[in-house]
């Protein structure tokens, strides 16, 4: 992730990027995955690391081959996930689950490279599933967005998932 800066974008760029974040959430809520993929840069890196609860003072060695992740995807792998969801053969999503994403605490700063912006946000994913099942998943996000041909594209996303134990029987959702 790029170094933290606190320089703001121009007001119209800031506004356009905020709108893009909200639009992204709606595209996903509406399962418009092809449109969502359009919002992603070709070199996108979409990542959610796995975590363990460790003592603050703990200095023990990292585990073999790093800690692992839930998502560590490039555009090709995200494409595979979308292909699966759109195959019409994912029974867990049929009948469809209602999903609402709430994006909040949005902070947008100019990144080091011209035409790029760092975005911090909080996302809350509400899933209304079979019968009366309700699931609420939360995460913090740090993104890098890039202005390409007049519109903002997601280049990097680091998702800090708040649940060391995933409290749902699947994670067929993007954050």
């Amino acid at each position, binding site marked *: 992730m790029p170094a933290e800066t606190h320089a703001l974008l121009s007001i119209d760029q800031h506004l356009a990027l905020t709108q893009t974040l909200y639009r992204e959430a709606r595209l996903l809520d509406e399962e418009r995955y092809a449109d969502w993929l359009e919002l992603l840069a070709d070199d996108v890196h979409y990542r*959610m690391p796995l975590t363990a*609860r460790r003592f603050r003072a703990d200095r023990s060695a990292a585990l073999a081959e790093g800690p692992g992740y839930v998502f560590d995807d490039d555009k090709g792998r995200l494409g*595979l*996930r979308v292909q699966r969801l759109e195959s019409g*053969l994912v029974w867990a999503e049929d009948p469809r689950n209602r999903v609402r994403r709430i994006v909040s605490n949005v902070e947008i700063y100019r990144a080091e490279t011209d035409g790029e912006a760092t975005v911090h946000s909080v996302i809350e994913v509400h899933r209304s599933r079979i019968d009366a099942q309700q699931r609420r998943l939360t995460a913090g996000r740090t993104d890098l967005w890039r202005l390409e041909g007049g519109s903002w594209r997601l280049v990097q996303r680091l998702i800090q998932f708040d649940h060391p134990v995933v409290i749902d029987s699947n994670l067929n959702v993007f954050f």
Partner: protein
Amino acid sequence: MTDYAGLVSAAGAMQRRQMYADPAVYEQELERIFGRCWLFLVHESQIPQPGDFFRTFMGEDDVLVVRQKDRSIKAFLNTCTHRGNRLCRADRGNAKAFACNYHGWAFGADGALVNVPLEKDAYFSEIDKSRFGLVEVEQVASYKGLVFGCFDRGAPSLADYLGDMKWYLDVWLDALPGGSVLLGEAQKVEIPTNWKLPVENVCGDGYHLGWAHAGAMKAVQSMDFSGFTVGNASVDLEGGLSIAGLNGHSLLATLDGVSGYSFYPDNGDIMRWLEANRPTVIERLGRVRGEKFWGSQLNFTIFPNLQFLPGLNWFRVYHPKGPGRIEQWTWAMAEQAMPEAIKQRILDNQLLTFGPAGLFDNDDGDNLAACTEQSRGWRTRQMDVYTNMAQGHSGRRPGLPGDIAVGVVSEHNQRYFYRRWQEHMAAADWRAVPQYNLNSLHAAEGLAHAG
């Protein structure tokens, strides 16, 4: 205690649904299955240094596994002996001592109570600290890197408990010098299911693969998934075996020596590594295991709740959290001797396919949850479910331990799993639990080593 024999038919081919949701059945399982069997604790590679600890569960008991100064491994109930508080709240790490949050009692890595605040002033130095050490798990033992614990002093040794399954286990644990390793953090997912359902799903249910995972298989159809077709239209059983009759442990195996890894995208480097190392494996394990099993897609089940799949490379333990809920913990698994680049590929592929957001894993949760939920209704719980596929179509093969059915789409292994479950539930203690390593290696010694 109730004799729950009626919940499983004699041959294991029918189960009463009550066994998936009844709290009384579950209570008896905690005592007679989880309180009695050897349960997986940790892989030695996860706690390499003295003071390294790992927090896990044996049934619903919270357990702390700690590497000792002399490098041996001990396991303790993770509860303070003063007023019962949870002693350690971290998942893993390294510690010289564990101090309780409540009143500050502190325990050494060996479980001894080493410090009691206000020992002089409030206890008048009258407390005998040696009486309040952490409670140790009765037996802890390893088999080639896998550490198990057992609450029952009357249990057979770990070696006898695993029995002839060890011969198959070595295909992962002892194929190459250095043995096995688990990669990365535990991937933890909570699923509203009875613990037996994911076990049966992996121990024998090749049947669901083409159907439940149709969406995932469609997305990755460029990869070769061992002859299964999208939508269960057909299956190529050629070269696969379902192996059970080994004290409740079992194995599903393809026999081509490559099909686990042939599912990986761009697998040239992995295939070359397999073939370059195969002569060593054959030298160590013989031709049958070196040529047919090593590199194949294998589903291992160690009764009651440990499963791992060399080939797809995930390693998993299910912790029961009540009759209708589990925590499923998964790691990626590899061989120590693999180059770092291949280990990284394994981690990548495992998390993409069977991690918390895994393309295949995500299809299983709702099925397992619903089979549990549909066992709760007053009328529904009196119904049966069936594992009668290919019943009577099994036999013995020279040199391969166990009772063996052809193909990996068969309910052969589930039948033995439920039969073992019933034997434990009905037995008052270990002396009443039958031991069977069918077609034992010892009886066929010459053949086993002829290959």
